[in-house]
């Protein structure tokens, strides 16, 4: 019963979904305020989601029906599963096993793959173009993001999130010991979630709504939800690894929120990068920086 509660209510399931919606609202509201306007009301993401759920789902012609309906569900399931191993709200995660860091990162990537596939299975050209862009972006940010998360893992000499956070909690914040890794991780997370300025895969002015162009109603709601959940999971992960562990839930919530605010502010400040510029940025700087950091940590380890 207790396990079921953990999965369905807190910290997984319902609470996570609500916090995900809250995160979207905070992000949109802050963005609006940075743009000198009022912004949405607090229940806006909830209303959007419920409305989409209640809306007619159009299944376009020439699309694999089962896949079309299954992909959004799969992506939500993937990010919810990813949440299991992450110390959400500073609570001890539901599961913990050796190597769960890698599994979590790849479960988050499953969302991206589903998004891409969702674009590629439809007949729509914008969606196909969006799907291709999602894939190319996936290939570009995946490596540096993982490398950036591996920094703390190496420092803690473990692949298990709980162990790394424990290590992070008992040492100096890794934000200070591995600043490059932190920056790469934050930007990698933004790339992963296709947040501006890395939103070329869904650039409205070029390819309409990217790979989700053909989605209406339920499918769109689920994709949006899973992206919000992925945002919360990713923020939790980065905050836990880089901002000094999860010892105090309240302090941890504040740290996560601060990270969300930073990410949102970055979104407001830049023009969108072209897809080739995104990829160039990653492979030119992201990977090299992350690798350099990694070597430094190894050398530091060896010296100690």
């Amino acid at each position, binding site marked *: 019963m207790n396990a079921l509660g953990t999965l369905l209510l807190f910290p997984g399931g319902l609470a996570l979904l609500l916090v995900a919606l809250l995160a979207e609202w905070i992000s949109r509201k*802050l963005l609006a305020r*940075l743009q*000198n*306007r*009022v912004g949405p009301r607090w229940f806006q993401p909830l209303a959007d989601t419920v409305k989409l759920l209640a809306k007619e789902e159009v299944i376009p012609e020439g699309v694999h029906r089962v896949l079309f309906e299954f992909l959004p569900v799969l992506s939500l399931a993937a990010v919810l599963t990813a949440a299991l191993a992450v110390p959400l709200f500073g609570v001890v995660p539901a599961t913990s096993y050796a190597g769960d860091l890698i599994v979590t990162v790849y479960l988050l990537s499953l969302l991206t793959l589903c998004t891409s596939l969702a674009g590629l299975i439809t007949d729509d050209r914008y969606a196909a173009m969006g799907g291709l862009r999602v894939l190319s972006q996936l290939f570009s940010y995946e490596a540096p993001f993982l490398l950036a998360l591996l920094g703390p893992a190496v420092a803690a000499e473990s692949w298990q999130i709980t162990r790394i956070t424990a290590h992070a909690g008992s040492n100096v914040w890794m934000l200070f010991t591995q600043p490059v890794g932190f920056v790469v991780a934050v930007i990698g997370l933004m790339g992963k979630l296709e947040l501006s300025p890395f939103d070329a895969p869904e650039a409205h002015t070029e390819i309409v709504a990217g790979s989700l162009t053909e989605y209406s109603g339920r499918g769109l709601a689920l994709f949006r939800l899973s992206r919000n959940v992925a945002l919360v999971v990713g923020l939790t992960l980065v905050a836990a690894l880089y901002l000094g562990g999860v010892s105090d839930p309240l302090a941890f919530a504040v740290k996560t929120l601060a990270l969300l605010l930073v990410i949102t502010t970055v979104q407001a400040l830049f023009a969108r990068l072209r897809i080739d510029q995104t990829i160039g940025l990653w492979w030119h700087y992201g990977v090299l920086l992350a690798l350099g950091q990694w070597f430094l940590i190894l050398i530091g380890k060896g010296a100690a």
Partner: protein
Amino acid sequence: MRISTILGMALQSLFRVPATRSYPQERTPSPERLRGQLRWNPEKCTGCAVCVKDCPAVAIELLEVDKAAKRFVLRYHTDRCIFCSQCVQSCRFKCLSLSNEAWELAALDKQAFTVDYGRDEDIHALVEKPASTDDPPRL
């Protein structure tokens, strides 16, 4: 080189009151010259119909009740009107004006847009003539 040139302005905005006017909770008074819905004063109208001739959108019809007594009804089609104020310019007797208050004109039904101006008894005399909802008459 700066990373972002807009950062300062964005942070300033964050701590400033938003530029938003929260219509409909608060209504800012509309400017004096705002060109809203047309108003007609039947007292001075001579029925010269220059307004009808000059209207570029065929939004005005001048219906005769009794021509000799200079009794007219002005049928105004808000949905056709382009609020250009040419009729106001053309009217030599200053019978026409554009209200600066009536600009919230949205309606669920097009019927609401046909307005008859004039003395009540004149409008009653015209009741049997239904308002046309067709396209503007051909020129």
